[in-house]
């Protein structure tokens, strides 16, 4: 089965999929592309709906037998299904429900906040020819706002709140456990992937959070995560961001 992963720096959604790929030992060709320069929109599959309309924004693309697949948590579930070794999801249905609702919160509340703050700190840059190729009107609007330096104070402060809430939730969750779901899972990878870069941008969120801080270190040291991080081309991959999911339009 031919599998190719187009990914960016090991941060955010690219890190989730790379770590899952390594944890499950799935053979795949890996192609490093610069998501922060919009290079995903140069791919032959860029206009396919599952790529163009991915809710995640500028995430990695896994192409399996010609079918382009996106959305990092679901790609990790796919890799967990097809790969080998220890499962990346809890064994019982209730545990899996907990993991999926945890990841949904990450996807919906934390990821847009992290990407927003990350893009403000280090804005991604795509040239206008590439921007014109972006198939999704709302994704293109997010690119244009970022390139114009157009960040709303409301969204910035709300994003910091959401990061604080995520760390608080992790701190509570880790009472009496090493990993968010008991055993190392997609929830740890996904949460780490969005939050590792927030240590420098929202330092107050991590103050007096010993369990969350130790968990960040533990996750970074997991072999599959470490191997993904070793693919970095920049000194600090957690500082490299591209346009993320949309901040909830309802407020």
């Amino acid at each position: 089965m031919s599998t190719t992963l187009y990914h960016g720096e090991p941060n955010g959604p690219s890190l989730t999929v790379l770590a899952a790929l390594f944890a499950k030992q799935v053979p795949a060709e890996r192609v490093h592309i610069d998501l922060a320069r919009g290079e995903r929109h140069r791919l032959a599959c860029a206009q396919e709906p599952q790529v163009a309309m991915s809710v995640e924004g500028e995430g990695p693309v896994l192409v399996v037998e010609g079918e382009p697949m996106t959305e990092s948590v679901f790609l990790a579930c796919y890799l967990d299904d097809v790969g080998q070794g220890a499962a990346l999801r809890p064994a019982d249905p209730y545990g899996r429900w907990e993991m999926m609702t945890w990841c949904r919160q990450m996807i919906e509340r934390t990821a847009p906040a992290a990407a927003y703050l990350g893009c403000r700190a280090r804005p991604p840059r795509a040239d206008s020819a590439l921007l014109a190729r972006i198939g999704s009107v709302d994704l293109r609007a997010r690119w244009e706002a970022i390139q114009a330096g157009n960040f709303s104070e409301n969204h910035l402060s709300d994003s910091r709140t959401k990061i604080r809430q995520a760390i608080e939730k992790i701190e509570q969750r880790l009472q009496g456990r090493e990993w968010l779901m008991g055993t190392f899972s997609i929830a740890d990878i996904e949460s780490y992937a969005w939050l590792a870069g927030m240590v420098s941008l929202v330092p107050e969120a991590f103050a007096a959070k010993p369990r969350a801080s130790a968990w960040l270190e533990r996750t970074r040291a997991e072999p599959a995560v470490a191997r993904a991080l070793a693919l970095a081309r920049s000194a600090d991959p957690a500082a490299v961001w591209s346009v993320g999911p949309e901040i909830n339009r309802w407020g």
Partner: protein
Amino acid sequence: MHSVTLYHWEPNANSGKPMLALMEKGVAFNSHYLDLLSFDQHKPEYLAVNPQGTIPAMLHGERVLTESTAIMEYVDEVFAGPKLMPADPRDRWRVRWWMKFMDQWLAPSFSMIGWKVFVGPAVRDKDPQELQAAIERIPLPERRVAWRKAISGAFGAEELEESRRRVALGIRMLEEELTKRPWLASNQYSLADINGFNLAYGLPVVWPELSNDELTPHILRWLRTIYARPATKACWAMGRTSMAKRVAVLEQPQPGPGQPA
């Protein structure tokens, strides 16, 4: 076997997803109807079950489950009955992709317009003090904002226009996807179809200019086929409002070949 209690509103959107999944699996459940328009979901009795005050919630034995799409996956895994997730890993990915796309991109646009034309007007005539108190009881700040906007009709022209753009694009995407295979995400009936039906069953009534037998024959075929299933019929018969009754439009037969649509 533990008993199942589902706290839900109408067979529609998020409430309808676990309702229909349970009924497809043949799982008997205690139905606890919450009247969204009377703010039952923010009353103390329900907040004791789900402190977030979101609908639906499912009690399975002692366990409380929330988040309609995740509940559906749980229901499919834990109960006997027909499998509603395909066995093939890539099909499973496709089911989840479509559910996320609908839950997070398309459905909020449908519901913004739905709240403007249905929910807002339905509650606006209540006593203003009672409404204010009801809003203040809402635990999640973003839901408070949404309710305030719905009640005051304060959705901006620009955001409504953006929602209309997304509805039109989403309809085209669904139509295109349904030309590829009999069901939305795989060759078998799945949670993606249950999710999609909850979003789209009212299309021919609410958006007749965008979705009809001529423009979107695959969507109409899909909706009618789902509504013909006994579980869907039984589920929508639990509806109490005019909103759920829009499903009656799907009782019209499919136009045959050569017949005018």
